[in-house]
C-alpha cells in the first residue's frame, strides 16, 4: 500500500506541477456545462425541467473530462520507458494499479470540485444535500476511474488510444453512470439520503467488484 501511495504522490506532484491533464479536463467540463446552459437557456427558469436536466449534464461533463484525463494517465508512463522502469521495481503490479487509481481519482475529484459550482451558477440551482451529492460523486467517480485506469493501461500502446479508450470505456461504465445520475437527481430534488440507498449500494458493489478485478488482471494488461 505504501508503494501505491508513492506512485500516486509521484503522479500528483508531476500533474500539479505541469497541470497538463488538469487544465484540459477543467476547461472541457466547464465548456460542456456552458454549452448545455446556452442550449437550454429558455428552460432554465423552470425548476422541474432543470431538476431533470442537471444531473445528466453534470455526469456528461464528468465522464467526458475524465475520459480525456485517463487517455493521458498512462501516456506519461510510456515517455522515456517509465512504465518499464516501474515494472523493473520489486513492486506488485496490483500496487501500480492502486497507485494510478488513487492519483486519477484525486485529479478527477479536483475537476469535479471546480465543475459543480459552475453548474450551480449557470443552471441557477440550489443543492439540498451537499454531503449526499459528494458521496454520490465520490462513489460514481471511483467506479468510473477503476475501470478507466485499467482500460487506459490496456490501450496505451495502441496507436489510436484516444479513440479506443472511450469506445471500450463508455459501455463498461454504464452501470455506474445510470445509478449515479438517478441518485444525483433524487438528492438534488429531495435531499434525503434514504431515498438513494439502492443506488448507493449498486455503486459500492460496482466499485468493489471492478477494483478487485482491475487489481487482479492489471498484470496482464501491462505485459509485453
Amino acid at each position, binding site marked *: 500500500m505504501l508503494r501505491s501511495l*508513492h506512485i500516486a504522490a509521484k503522479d500528483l*506532484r*508531476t500533474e500539479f506541477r505541469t497541470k497538463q491533464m488538469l487544465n484540459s479536463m477543467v476547461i472541457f467540463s466547464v465548456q460542456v456545462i456552458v454549452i448545455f446552459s446556452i442550449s437550454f437557456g429558455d428552460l432554465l427558469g423552470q425548476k422541474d425541467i432543470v431538476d431533470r436536466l442537471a444531473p445528466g449534464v453534470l455526469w456528461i461533463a464528468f465522464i467526458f473530462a475524465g475520459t480525456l484525463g485517463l487517455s493521458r494517465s498512462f501516456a506519461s508512463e510510456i515517455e522515456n520507458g*517509465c512504465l*518499464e*522502469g516501474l515494472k523493473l521495481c*520489486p*513492486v506488485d503490479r496490483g500496487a501500480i494499479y492502486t497507485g494510478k487509481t488513487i492519483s486519477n481519482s484525486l485529479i478527477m475529484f479536483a475537476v469535479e470540485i471546480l465543475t459543480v459550482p459552475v453548474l450551480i451558477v449557470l443552471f441557477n440551482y440550489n443543492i439540498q444535500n451537499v454531503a449526499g451529492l459528494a458521496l454520490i460523486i465520490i462513489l460514481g467517480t471511483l467506479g468510473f476511474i477503476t475501470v478507466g485506469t485499467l482500460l487506459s493501461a490496456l490501450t496505451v500502446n495502441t496507436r489510436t488510444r484516444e479513440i479506443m479508450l472511450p469506445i471500450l470505456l463508455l459501455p463498461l461504465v454504464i452501470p455506474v453512470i445510470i445509478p449515479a445520475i438517478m441518485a444525483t437527481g433524487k438528492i438534488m430534488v429531495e435531499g434525503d439520503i434514504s431515498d438513494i440507498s439502492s443506488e448507493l449500494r449498486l455503486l459500492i458493489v460496482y466499485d468493489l467488484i471492478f477494483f478487485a478485478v482491475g487489481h487482479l488482471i492489471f498484470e496482464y494488461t501491462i505485459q509485453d
Partner: protein
Amino acid sequence: MDPIISARGIQRSFGKHKALRNIDLEIKKGESVAIFGPNGAGKTTLLKVLSTIIMPTKGNVIVNGIDLRRDSSSVRELIGVISHQTYLYDGLTARENLRFFGKMYGMERSLLEERIRELLGHVGLLGRADDRVGAFSRGMKQRLSIARALVHRPEVLFMDEPYTGLDQRSAKAFENVLRALDKDKVTKIMVSHNIERAMQLCDRLIVMDRGEIVYDRMAKEIEGKEDFKLAYSSLICMDTDAEGVSNLW
C-alpha cells in the same frame, strides 16, 4: 564459485518468430560480460528475459538462487537496468526521480538521501539535482539513468546500449562508475555495438546470432584468435570491415 545467473534452455517467441532458441548461460558473480550480435540477434530480448521484463516462453532462469518464474519480485531487488530508454520522469527533478525509485525499492529515507547525494556526485549532476529532468540534455538524462539503476545497490547490472547519447566525457565518467562497481563485485552484463569500449570493460565476450549464442569466450583467451575475428566480422561488420577487427589488439 556458484553462478549468480544460470539460464537453462531459454526460448522466447513473439508469435511465430523465435527471438531466443535454447539459450544456456551461466554468469559468475563479479563477472563483466559483453553481448554482441547483429540487429535482431536476440541480445535485447535475452537481457529483457534475464532482467524479468519479459518471461521466457520455455526454460528457467535462476538469479542468485531465486527462480525468476516463481519469485520475480525478489529477483528485481537484486538487479539494476540501464537502457537506451532512461526510465526517468521529465516532470520530476533529478533528486525526486532517484527518491521515487529508491522508495520503490523500499529504501530507508535517511540512507536513500545519502545514496542520492553520492550517486549524483558520481555522475556529475549534484549541481543540477533540483532541476527538472525535462530540461536535461540527452547525455545528462543518460547519466542520471545510470544513477537510477544503481540507487538500490544492485548485485547485477544489465546495460542495453548504455553509451546512447553519451559524449566522450560522459562515457568516460560512466566507465569510471562501472569500474568503481568492481570492488563491490557487481556482475555486469552489457549489450553493445561498441566493441572497443566493451573489450576494455568486460572480461567475457558473447556473440549472438538468430537467437542463439554462437561464440562465448573470456576476453583474455581471444586476443588475436581467428575464430573471434571470424564470428565478429561475419556477423557484425561488413566484409570490408573485417580488417578493422585486427586493430582491436
